[in-house]
């Protein structure tokens, strides 16, 4: 299918009548995924500051609210069933959703808040014709035109987009839009663009998990965290980080339970009620973050919990670059080769 760029604004506006439409929007100096009413607002092609996970797993969400009255207790579930389209997110963000699915819907647990949104959301991603220098999606099983997690993939052909259905849901979605079919020439052009686009940055993660297997007590962790401020810029802006904290907010006889993003980089994250903290310093916290992404997640779900979007690299206030960290880990002597 072909979408003419001139018609994008109208198309989004029409979609917004039927769906809640998220698209990249320039807002006060940042590009963010925002709910749009008018198609012209969309800044397609721009990388969003915050990752798209927020659509399915908002930074803060009310899980339920309650009211106490003379008649008793009244509770209300806050499950969000709104039909949603995420339009123009990057393929790395789309891929992150596949990874998050593992966590929020597995054989032990189904997170109904996440899965309900997921079921009701159509992902239309836009391939990256020009990945940034901090992008390393190709090194972690993705790519500028990777379709994992997308229902529809858009390819920028200059004046128009070529829209490819990836899933049945995507096919059905596209068929309703009454778009012209793509010609052979356009298809060939799209294939050419796909082949040409490459994430320029590289990280070698082959054998990384095995390396980390023997590194829990390794002296490498002693100094890695030294310059880290212990903020959550990396984890909050990471498309795959998914830890949260639950807080009850109550006033008089009304209240609600709120789920907020939390970060393993905060001391409070593991602080016990007793005052004991099993991860007392940046050392243990960094080890956890690295191990979770590149070892524990691999063990549990057979996938690396990193999509190579580069947000943690671009936004770290002290330039602690995960690409360098991974390269350093690979270079460590863990003694396992000897034995």
């Amino acid at each position, binding site marked *: 299918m072909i979408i003419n760029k001139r018609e994008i604004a109208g198309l989004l506006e029409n979609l917004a009548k039927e769906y809640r439409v998220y698209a990249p929007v320039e807002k*006060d100096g940042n590009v963010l995924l925002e709910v749009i009413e008018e198609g012209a607002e969309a800044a397609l092609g721009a990388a969003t500051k*915050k990752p798209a996970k927020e659509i399915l797993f908002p930074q803060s969400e009310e899980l339920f609210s309650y009211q106490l009255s003379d008649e008793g207790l009244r509770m209300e579930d806050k499950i969000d069933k709104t039909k949603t389209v995420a339009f123009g997110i990057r393929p790395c963000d789309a891929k992150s959703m596949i990874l998050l699915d593992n966590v929020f819907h597995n054989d032990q647990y189904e997170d109904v808040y996440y899965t309900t949104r997921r079921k009701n959301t159509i992902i239309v991603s836009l391939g990256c014709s020009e990945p940034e220098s901090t992008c390393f999606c190709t090194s972690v099983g993705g790519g500028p035109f990777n379709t994992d997690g997308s229902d529809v993939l858009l390819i920028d052909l200059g004046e128009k987009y070529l829209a490819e259905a990836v899933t049945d849901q995507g096919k059905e979605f596209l068929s309703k839009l009454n778009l012209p079919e793509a010609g052979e020439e356009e298809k060939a052009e799209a294939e050419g663009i796909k082949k040409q686009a490459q994430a320029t940055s590289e990280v070698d993660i082959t054998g990384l998990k095995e390396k980390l297997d023997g590194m829990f007590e390794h002296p490498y962790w002693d100094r890695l965290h030294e310059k880290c401020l212990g903020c959550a*810029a990396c984890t909050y802006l990471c498309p795959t980080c998914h830890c949260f904290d639950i807080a009850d907010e109550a006033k008089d006889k009304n209240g609600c339970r709120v789920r907020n*993003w939390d*970060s393993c980089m905060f001391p409070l994250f593991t602080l016990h009620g007793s005052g004991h903290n099993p991860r007392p310093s940046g050392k243990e916290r960094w080890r956890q973050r690295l191990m979770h992404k590149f070892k524990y997640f691999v063990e549990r779900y057979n996938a690396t919990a990193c999509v190579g979007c580069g947000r943690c690299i671009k936004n770290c206030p002290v330039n602690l670059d995960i690409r360098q960290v991974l390269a350093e880990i690979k270079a460590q002597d863990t003694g396992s080769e000897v034995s």
Partner: protein
Amino acid sequence: MQNITNVIKDTAKKLLEEKKVDLVVGFAKGSLPLRSTPYFARTAEEAERLVWDEYCENNLANYLRNREEKVAVVAKGCDVRSIVALMKENQIDREKLYIIGVPCRGMIDRQKAGELVGGKEILEAEVKGEEVVLRGKGFEEKVKKEELLYDTCARCAYGNPAIYDELVGEEVPAREANFKEIEEFEALGAEERAEFLAKEMSKCIRCYACRNACPMCYCETCFVDSSTPQWISKRAYSVKDNLIFQGVRVFHQLGRCADCGACERACPMGIKLSLLTRKGVKDVKEMFDYEAGLNPNDKPVLNDFNTDDPQPFLMKE
């Protein structure tokens, strides 16, 4: 800059080799263009990686509180102001700290550089005297260094370290401090100010990079992290709670803030935090004729009391 780098390296190596210090905190080359990164050198070999350039934007005083070992720090004007303020609060033992002072003419703002090239990605930057050459895919732009400085740097009057054990490089001419942007903000009506603050605070994601980047923010438990009682909502979408967080943080900085801008530089969302901190700096200066971290021997302003102190917030004078 290369000369300064060489002298810093030599000084650091000597201090480490002679065991005068156990650690040198400075900067190393970063992994991105226009970026240097805090670096911890413990051997002469490691000291070889130290650099000094226009990208040394972090306030290294943040790494110096309650250190057991003897430490040397590569410190620009604002770092030293924070060090002095921390000495007064008993967080830094001057006896165990060796200050390699470096006069500073300001650090380069990556955001500004990005905006100057129309948002295109900068892949390479080269400082040539007073000019910076920015290069990326299909473009090369020459920009005056002065135009690229962080706002806080462009308005900084204290590029020269107030105290040091050794000074590397020539002292820089003092810039005139100005609070133009604060005066403009003060001139707005209450509604406009509230609107502006709400707009800025709506960007906040509560990552606390600002708080953690600040050398003066070292409360063992920050009030925002308290859950019994929970002083403010932990919801990042709550603009008013975000404002309470920043407001309390800034009030807590009065008379302590060295106006370094580290909070604003750390913010991944680009919140204009220096408007809040500098309003505090300006008020303290005007009301009490005090600026934090300039004199190791004076009393912190809020620890001192005169009967004729202005109290406009208590009564109309």
